[in-house]
């Protein structure tokens, strides 16, 4: 993850001396150069920047190479824990350690995996980390110079026996690799006078040791952070003395921007070395960092959900407001309608009463006979010289009994009209003629159903009686339709 960032902060802590550089797109800028005893709780100069710490404390930090046969059903974690406890002579709870695979090789016909272990006692290193925290730094990884050099040597990928020589002021680190797998490391200090001879001697010892222990001659030596004299003439001298080719690999000392950061230059020159290195940060701090990252991720997710939830809340709230407003409007509409209905109900009740009354009136009107219409029509039916002396309708008079009672006795009272009259003529033929003219007019009248008559005295006295049975005349009311 660190390798992908464009900016990196590296700290190099050697004994009490702390140097910090900011690496940005291959350019390096020193950001701090101080002594650890100059750092106090109120000396915060960083704002939580993440930094990689290279801890150069050879006394406190122990390294060991462990080899295990492959494939082997071993509990690597437990074995390493056990080895670390033996190495540091302390229980694992008091230690901080890490391990990593650094390669595999055939050892006496068996394939072996090699692991690099780094460990230190908590009480010896944690105070340093606390001081660094005072500066406002957020240490994300702790590694060691040896680990950097081992990784650098591995990346050179030499065949057979090879050496990596690194110059650090008067100190020279020599690392031996067999087929790219780290074998051992020696550090020796060069004296002011005759240091070239001392160097050759030390290297020859190392060559001898490597041949003796690993049964493998060193065939090539690479030099890192080569000083000026090596570049100029030392390289040839060494090649002649050691009998192996020597390669100077960058960076060389003369080209360093910041020589004071010493071995850190190796890492800055090749930041891709960083990811596989040991991380000797205490486990609880790594866990805290993980928890913090998880917390931020969780918070971010929750914030996104919160945003969505707020939008949902707003939509719900608006819908509620709108519906409440609609409810109020419709309630008012309903109330107004109910008042209107109440008013109309009174009217409806009145109309119902009228309808009931009209039914009674209808029944009553049906009783109406409209007999006046018959009386109105009657004069138009009587011929000249015929006179009526009496008209009787309805209940029969005792004085005028009907000789031929009507077939339907029930209708006689209301339907029978008795007409008594006289024909004023001396001629008998005319008497009959006028009478029958009258009778015929009666029969053809629309309101008369049938007639019968008495003419006993017609010839002698000109008198006659007609009994007319009337049809019922119904009122033609709109109401009856």
């Amino acid at each position, binding site marked *: 993850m660190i390798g992908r960032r464009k900016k990196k902060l590296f700290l190099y802590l050697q004994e009490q001396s702390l140097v910090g550089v900011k690496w940005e797109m291959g350019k390096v800028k020193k950001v701090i150069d101080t002594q650890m005893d100059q750092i106090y709780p109120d000396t915060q100069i960083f704002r939580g920047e993440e930094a990689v710490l290279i801890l150069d404390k050879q006394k406190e930090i122990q390294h060991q190479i462990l080899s295990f046969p492959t494939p082997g059903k071993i509990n690597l974690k437990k074995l390493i824990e056990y080895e670390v406890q033996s190495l540091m002579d302390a229980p694992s709870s008091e230690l901080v350690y890490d391990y990593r695979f650094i390669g595999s090789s055939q050892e006496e016909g068996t394939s072996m995996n090699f692991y690099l272990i780094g460990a230190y006692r908590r009480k010896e290193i944690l105070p340093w980390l606390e001081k660094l925290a005072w500066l406002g730094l957020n240490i994300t990884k702790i590694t060691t110079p040896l680990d950097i050099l081992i990784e650098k040597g591995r990346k050179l990928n030499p065949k057979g026996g090879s050496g990596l020589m690194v110059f650090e002021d008067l100190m020279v680190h020599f690392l031996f690799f067999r087929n790219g797998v780290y074998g051992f490391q020696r550090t020796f200090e060069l004296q002011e006078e005759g240091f070239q001879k001392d160097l050759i001697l030390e290297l020859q010892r190392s060559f001898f040791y490597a041949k003796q222990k690993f049964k493998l001659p060193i065939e090539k030596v690479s030099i890192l952070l080569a000083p000026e004299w090596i570049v100029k003439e030392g390289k040839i001298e060494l090649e002649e003395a050691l009998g192996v080719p020597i390669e100077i690999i960058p960076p060389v000392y003369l080209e360093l921007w910041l020589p004071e950061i010493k071995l850190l230059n190796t890492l800055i020159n090749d930041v891709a070395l960083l990811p596989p290195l040991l991380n000797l940060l205490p486990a609880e701090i790594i866990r805290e960092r993980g928890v913090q990252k998880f917390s931020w991720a969780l918070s971010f997710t929750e914030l996104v959900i919160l945003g969505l939830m707020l939008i949902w809340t707003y939509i719900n709230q608006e819908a509620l407001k709108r519906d409440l407003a609609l409810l109020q409007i419709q309630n008012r509409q309903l109330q107004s309608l109910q008042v209107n*209905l109440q008013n109309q109900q009174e009217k409806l009740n009145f109309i119902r009463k009228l309808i009931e009354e009209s039914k009674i009136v209808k029944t009553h009107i049906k009783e109406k006979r409209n*007999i*006046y219409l018959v009386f109105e029509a009657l004069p138009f039916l009587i011929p000249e010289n015929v006179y009526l002396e009496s008209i009787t309708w309805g209940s029969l008079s005792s004085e005028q009994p009907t000789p031929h009672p009507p077939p339907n006795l029930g209708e006689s009272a209301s339907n029978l009209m008795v007409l008594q009259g006289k024909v004023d003529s001396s001629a008998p033929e005319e008497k009959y003629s006028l009478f029958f003219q009258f009778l015929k007019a009666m029969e053809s009248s629309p309101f008369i159903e049938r007639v019968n008559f008495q003419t006993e005295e017609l010839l002698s006295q000109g008198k006659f009686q007609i009994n007319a049975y009337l049809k019922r005349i119904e009122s033609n009311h709109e109401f009856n339709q």
Partner: protein
Amino acid sequence: MNLTSKEKKAFILPSILALILLGLLIYNHHTLSLNQKIQLELNQIQSNIFSGQQTLSSIQKIAGKEKLYAQYQLDQWIPLFHNLLEVKLFIGQKVTSGLAKVKGKEKNLLWITNETPKPHSFLIGQFSLEAIFPSYLACQNFLKEMESSQPFLIPQKVEIKKEGLKLESLFTFSFAFRMKDEKV
């Protein structure tokens, strides 16, 4: 596993946010259920409004026929009286006024029967009238007036006889009326 203080601190913000989210969730759930209730209420009200409008429309249609029914108001056709004397006075006045119009002359007005109760809560009374008319036309107009004007009389019997130049007549009419206490 014991959490360090930094780890505990790291969980403060997510916990607060989780609580806010939970609160919002509960609030929204409440709002949604409230909204559902309102929707149900709205549907109920809309249904009530619809049925109310239908009722109103029906009432208004019926109210359009008010005039039709009003002309058959009971008071106009079967008048209401407080007592029988009022009925007799009313009949006397109606007959007298009818005769006066046709220059007829009343000879006798006789209340024949007391009222007979009818099923539709009104009463029927009967009376006979003897009168003299100057002509058949006068007699005929009188009958028309009695039978047509509101409240009308129902002729039960009509007898007309010629006596010299005048006509003597005898009518029996029935008359529908209502009493306030439905009793005589």
